[in-house]
């Protein structure tokens, strides 16, 4: 269904492109960005001749389109609700595991990815939690940065932080295949604010159960 929709959208945009390409004697740029187009309800060409018939047909088509749109929205809502319930069920299934897995974040110095003593202490506790967790538990270490510096450099720095944490946890005995890393750079701050207090809270590694 999704594939068909994508193909349909692509088809529509191709036609639109061709049409505009032909219309403009002086085409500046042939392509135009296409915003995802709303699905178009197919309509039947009216074949009647009298005005009254035409108007009636028009009204009928408008009603048809309205009903189709209503049905589409209802279906959309139904699917969204289904997805939400499925997600709820999935999270509920995780809950017993998640409840006992209480992780603490660890914090870093500015532009640094090496572990401070306070971070090592926290990681010892986190390592115990992971090692006592159910088989099949997967924990993702998220590396984060404060708002200073370039977004791109911070993506790399956040990864270095997550890696330092992963490396230390494995030296404490956590199996590497229970762990994965991701860097969000400065894209997901824990707190807003432009002072050292906020920055210190944002230079961190967090722990998320992914499976």
């Amino acid at each position, binding site marked *: 269904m999704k594939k068909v929709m994508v193909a349909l959208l692509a088809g529509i945009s191709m036609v639109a*492109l061709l049409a*505009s390409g032909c219309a403009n*004697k002086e085409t500046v*740029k042939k392509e135009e960005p296409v*915003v995802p187009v709303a699905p178009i309800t197919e309509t039947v060409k009216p074949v009647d001749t009298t005005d009254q018939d035409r108007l009636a047909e028009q009204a009928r088509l408008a009603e048809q389109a309205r009903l189709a749109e209503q049905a589409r929205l209802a279906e959309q809502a139904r699917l969204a609700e289904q997805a939400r319930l499925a997600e709820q069920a999935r999270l509920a299934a995780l809950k017993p595991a998640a409840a006992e897995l209480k992780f603490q974040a660890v914090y870093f110095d500015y532009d640094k990815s090496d572990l401070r003593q306070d971070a090592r202490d926290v990681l010892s506790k986190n390592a115990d939690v992971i090692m006592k967790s159910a088989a099949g538990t997967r924990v993702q270490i998220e590396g984060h940065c404060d708002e200073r510096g370039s*977004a791109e450099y911070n993506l790399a720095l956040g990864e270095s932080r997550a890696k330092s944490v992963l490396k230390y946890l494995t030296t404490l005995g956590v199996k590497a295949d229970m762990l994965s890393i991701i860097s969000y750079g400065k*894209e997901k701050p824990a707190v807003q604010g432009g002072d050292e207090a906020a920055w210190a809270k944002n230079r961190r590694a967090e722990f998320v159960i992914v499976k």
Partner: protein
Amino acid sequence: MKTWLLIILLVALPVVLSAQPDYIEVNAPGNRQLKLAVEPALSPDGTPATESARQSSEVIAFDMNMSAVVMAESRALQPPAGNKSLADVNYAPWLNAGYDMLVRSELTVKGERLTVEFRLFDVINRKMISAKRYLGSAKDLRRFSHSFADEILRSLTGEKGVFTTRIAFVSTQSGNKEIYIMDWDGYNPLPLTKNGSINLNPDFSPDGREIIFTSYKRRNPDLYRRALSSPVEVPLSNRKGLNITGNWSPDGSKIALALSKDGDAEIYTIEKDGSRPTRLTSNPALDLYPAWSPDGKQIAFVSDRLGKPQIFVMNATGGEARRLTTAGNYNVNPRWSPKGDKIAYSRMVNGSFHIFTIAVDGSSDSQLTADGSNENPAWSADGRFICFSSVRSSGNGIYVMRADGSGQIKVSRAKGTYFQPAWSAY
């Protein structure tokens, strides 16, 4: 004094207007800048200018002023010069008003159909220099006006203009970091991505039809590719770890990017289909943000191998890297100029970024911005302009300036936060 100016103009104009391929410094010392009047469009029956007619003349005046090749004004004469036909120009009142050149146009809108004809006149020599006619729909008026501004620039300098090009950028207008695209002057913004995730660092293919960008939509910073004409986002590099800061090679065959699949962030090239990763850097430091030279032979990039991020240059096949920036202790975001002579970058000083350009041999390191904080410079295809994101008291957004730092102006129009602009090819 006036006679003296006139003599200079009489000598200078024929040279300027003969459209030689070489760039001519029309505002060189000893010359005054040429003045261009852009008359609001007329209807075929000579009725007064409509809203769209004024819009068209303002587009051309804005483009030509930004080029700095002429000083342009959207201007109607009062009383009107009194020529109904487009070709039949009463030059005297324009000359008396101090103009050297004149753009006149005729605009017809029938329902959705638009016809517009532009003509460029040499007021001093009383002759037409260029004319173009465009047929399209009403929404094309700005694009057609930009296109005729390109034609004026071509007539005066022999150079191709970028006035019909576009800028892609990241904005949080929707609540998430999504990629948008707009005309170079900030009009007609459109959302490109709508995936609700974090989307970063768009870059155009050399033919301007596609972009690459990094997205977290599958819970990893992966590189995606999509055509502007299609909403389909194709994963291009979803290797373990970072797949970030992609930059398309000038011939379109390869993409340079930073990957961390083998440890820390290193520079690689991949084919345009994402295959055959080739590693170019190898050291324990962070290497990222590659930028191709226009001949495709070299790559500038950011590395903190000496402690703090600095800009380095290496061959596009890898090997020894040379440190480019020596001043400042936080230099990032390199972008190579289309002419190959300079690299634009941003430097952090006391927590704020500023845009700099530096010659490829490391000389002529110059600061171009002074207000607020300014990041991610990107060159226009002709090298005449640089766009960048700015947070400053006169308004946050995407700004455009000339390559020497003059004429800084905010072009993005909607409120919100803006990041990481990329400028399309011609």
